[in-house]
């Protein structure tokens, strides 16, 4: 293992984190919210550690594939550890470091599950940092680092693969660095657009930014206790709904859109599937809510159902209605949508639409094969052939995802939580959504879990964000140091 290079990159990452902490510091000073010192201390420690690692270590060798995975998952752990310092120093969770870590991990992995019981009582600087961790984690902190790495003479080809979600990693430019720049550029552009639109709806800059971060990263942290419902504004809901949908779409497609290649979008199978899934789910949920008399007005039913379906499918987790009160059928529908998640190359979590499509096509193919034993079939997405390697990878991923989900449920019931809470918390963290059902439902939070469960759930969020393998590789090598050759 090239430990020197691995930790040098961690150092660079910490410097980025320290730099981004200056933004909440500014808001904290502006609002005199009293958490300024917490940020100054956190910045000093993070920057110190970052500079130490980045300047002292002088790696000689280039990175190899396995080191790429280690760097990425270790980087996210480091980010969450140092990112939780402001929570610790400001004392919102007392001295419970696990809560700080859970909240930060939930932020960076864009989960949005919170252990803050009274959000509105927390200092404003800290709430901004909480939302900013979403934004940094949404497009990926490593992807941000990739922009700088080549100037330091470090190769970054190995890192791209480990962080960007989805089974097929497309580049929009020959150079990884430029690809990262373009993706972050689109992300920044969308951020500015949504912030302006929200401000048009009467929100101040602070609130608009916090919710933009939560939306585009498909995170779900709000600065209000009642989440988006607290705005009581159809306009704000519509803006957030549209941007959630965009954030759940592949950013490669956004690039095609900018380039004016509309046909690419219409011919993108994953996008079509994603849109269709959302559309039919909204329709079914609306009808079910309306006919079960949960909502008397059809349009109100449509408004809440549409927002919730998009929020859950894109793995954002914003809430406009307490879906805990909806018919059981709709609640389970939402749970299913949690597994599906966003498109590959988006900021959304979950298994990703494309994996679901490939999995279903594979089942179809197996059925056909059983009926025509001698026939030959090729698995295709549109006109593109799905290679055997990719197919195996996808099937193994789905299997692993479901297995980890089941183990999580088993663990939480073992800790004494009820079944619905256990399985919905398990999938809501693994898919980076946030709210689940029952005790982790729409208007609840994760504060009641014991510390061990919180650590495990934080680990689940990381597993989900980095799509299982990277994290498993890290832990495999940590548990079996003798297997490092």
């Amino acid at each position, binding site marked *: 293992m090239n430990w020197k290079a691995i930790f040098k990159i961690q150092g660079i990452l910490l410097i980025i984190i320290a730099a981004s902490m200056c933004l909440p510091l500014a808001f904290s000073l502006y609002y005199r919210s009293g958490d300024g010192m917490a940020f100054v201390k956190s910045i000093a420690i993070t920057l110190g550690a970052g500079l130490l690692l980045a300047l002292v270590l002088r790696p000689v060798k280039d990175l190899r*594939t396995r080191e790429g995975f280690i760097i990425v998952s270790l980087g996210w752990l480091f980010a969450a550890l140092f990112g939780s310092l402001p929570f610790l120093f400001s004392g919102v969770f007392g001295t419970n470091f696990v809560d700080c870590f859970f909240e930060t991990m939930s932020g960076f992995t864009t989960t949005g599950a919170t252990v803050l019981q009274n959000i509105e009582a927390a200092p404003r600087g800290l709430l901004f940092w909480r939302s900013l961790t979403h934004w940094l984690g949404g497009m990926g902190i490593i992807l941000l680092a990739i922009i700088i790495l080549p100037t330091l003479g470090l190769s970054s*080809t190995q890192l791209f693969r480990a962080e960007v979600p989805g089974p097929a990693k497309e580049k929009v430019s*020959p150079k990884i660095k430029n690809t990262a720049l373009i993706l972050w550029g689109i992300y920044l552009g969308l951020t500015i657009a949504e912030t302006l639109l929200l401000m048009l709806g009467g929100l101040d800059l602070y609130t608009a930014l916090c919710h933009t971060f939560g939306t585009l990263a498909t995170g779900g942290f709000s600065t209000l206790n009642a989440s988006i419902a607290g705005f009581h504004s159809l306009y704000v809901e519509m803006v957030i709904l549209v941007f959630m949908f965009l954030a759940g779409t592949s950013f490669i497609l956004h690039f095609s859109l900018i380039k004016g290649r509309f046909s690419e979008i219409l011919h993108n199978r994953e996008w079509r599937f994603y849109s269709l899934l959302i559309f039919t789910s909204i329709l079914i949920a609306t009808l079910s809510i309306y006919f079960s008399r949960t909502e008397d007005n059809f349009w109100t039913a449509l408004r809440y159902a549409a927002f919730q379906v998009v929020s859950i499918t894109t793995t954002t987790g914003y809430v406009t209605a307490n879906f805990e009160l909806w018919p059981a059928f709709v609640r389970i529908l939402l749970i299913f949508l949690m597994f599906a998640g966003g498109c590959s190359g988006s900021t959304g979590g979950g298994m990703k639409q494309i994996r679901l499509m490939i999995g279903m096509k594979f089942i179809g193919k197996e059925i056909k094969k059983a009926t025509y034993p001698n026939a030959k079939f090729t698995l295709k997405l549109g006109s593109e052939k799905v290679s055997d390697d990719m197919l195996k990878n996808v099937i193994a991923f789905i299997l692993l995802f479901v297995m980890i989900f089941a183990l999580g449920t088993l663990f939480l019931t073992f800790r004494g939580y009820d079944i619905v809470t256990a399985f919905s918390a398990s999938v809501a963290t693994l898919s980076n959504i946030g709210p689940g059902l029952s005790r982790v439902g729409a208007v609840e939070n994760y504060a009641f879990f014991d510390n061990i469960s919180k650590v495990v759930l934080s680990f689940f969020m990381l597993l989900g964000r980095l799509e299982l393998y990277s994290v498993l590789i890290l832990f495999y090598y940590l548990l079996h140091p003798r297997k490092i050759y």
Partner: protein
Amino acid sequence: MNIVIVGGGELGSAVAGELIREDHDVTVIEKSDKKAKFLNDSLDALVIAGSGTDIRILRHANVEKADLFLALSNDDNVNIVSCGLVKKLSSATTIAKVENVNHYFPGPPNTPADFGIDRIVASKQLTINKIVDLIAEPDTIEHIHFLKENVRIFGIVVGEDFSGKDKKLKEITQEDAIWNKIRVIAIKKGNTVHIPGGEDRLQSGDKLYIIGKSDTLHKLISLYFASHVKVRKVIINGGNRIGRELARQQEKNGKRVTIIEEDERECERLTEELDNVLIIKGSGTNPGVLSELDMEDAFVVCVTPDDEHNIISAVLAKKHKAFKAVCNISNIAISSIINQVKEIDSVFSTESLAVGEIMKYCRKGDVLSVTPVPYIDAETVKIKISQEIPILGKTLNEIEFPKGMIVGALYRDEQVIIPHGEDRLLLGDVAIIFVLPGSKRLIETIFA
């Protein structure tokens, strides 16, 4: 620059790696899915799996926006056709690797330009030229020429009987003024290479790289390094394209040529095509075959497609008292290891020669060309000084050159100057600069 490469084999990936190191945007089109996947993981480039003659793939690779198009697959037909397709789509300069130039372009009216090809690189021909140079200068191990062959770099080995053995470079220069007219730009002792100063001692086994005017260099070699063996016999291991063409050429030069070839059919073909050349069926690694031949004072060339075969047969040839043994290696990565085998006098590789030739066309600004000096991993860079830069007018002593960089020759008013510390760089000079691997990036900071 935006560069699209067709073919991700040894040559294509080596060129891509070199271009990426120079910060170009590279897209590689590779036919095999597996290889494309591997390249995608190892190169910071866009890799597309598909055929280089498929117009959709070419469009996907964005050839419309490319500045340079390199067709480097192993198939001449693919390379020619893809250049033709690209020329219709974009204004990129097209370079095609075509081995069988005479077959496709025997002369007017069919020119490469008709097929949209701006330049042709014939990598095997480059190898043949290299071998011809080495046979013509049998006392050298490396041979690079510039400015219409007026300036050359020779690599030579300090022998046991070298008269200046164990003396300092300074002392040798004092004894004979001819050393003042050339410049020793690098010494390789064991595995380390450095640019020598006056205090360096020349010991037997050292490899020297010297630059100078051609006639001076020849004189120097005949005075100090000549073995006085006249090469009359050339033995070629491997009757493929390189071996065949080389044999034809050497036979014309009046050498007695022998080809050793394992394949029965190939042997037959060789006997039909070549006259006055002895064809032996057998393996160059078989001592029985070798003892049959009279190897004494022969120049042995190993050019089979199999690297291991070449290495073993070269070493065996030396055991049979061959005068020189040189070999062609396709795995560029191992060439530096083979360079340590002292029985093998010179190693070259078709791929790296082609890389060097192609890289000549990928330069921007004032850099006229870059020629790699293989196996010490160094480069010679030809730069035209056309701008007011800070180092102008200073003497070479005053300019703080990095450790691994030296100005080997200047070309001014159609005169070649081998510069000394007191010479100055002037506007309009063409400088030939020699750089060791660690200092390659520094050229831009000094000459820009």
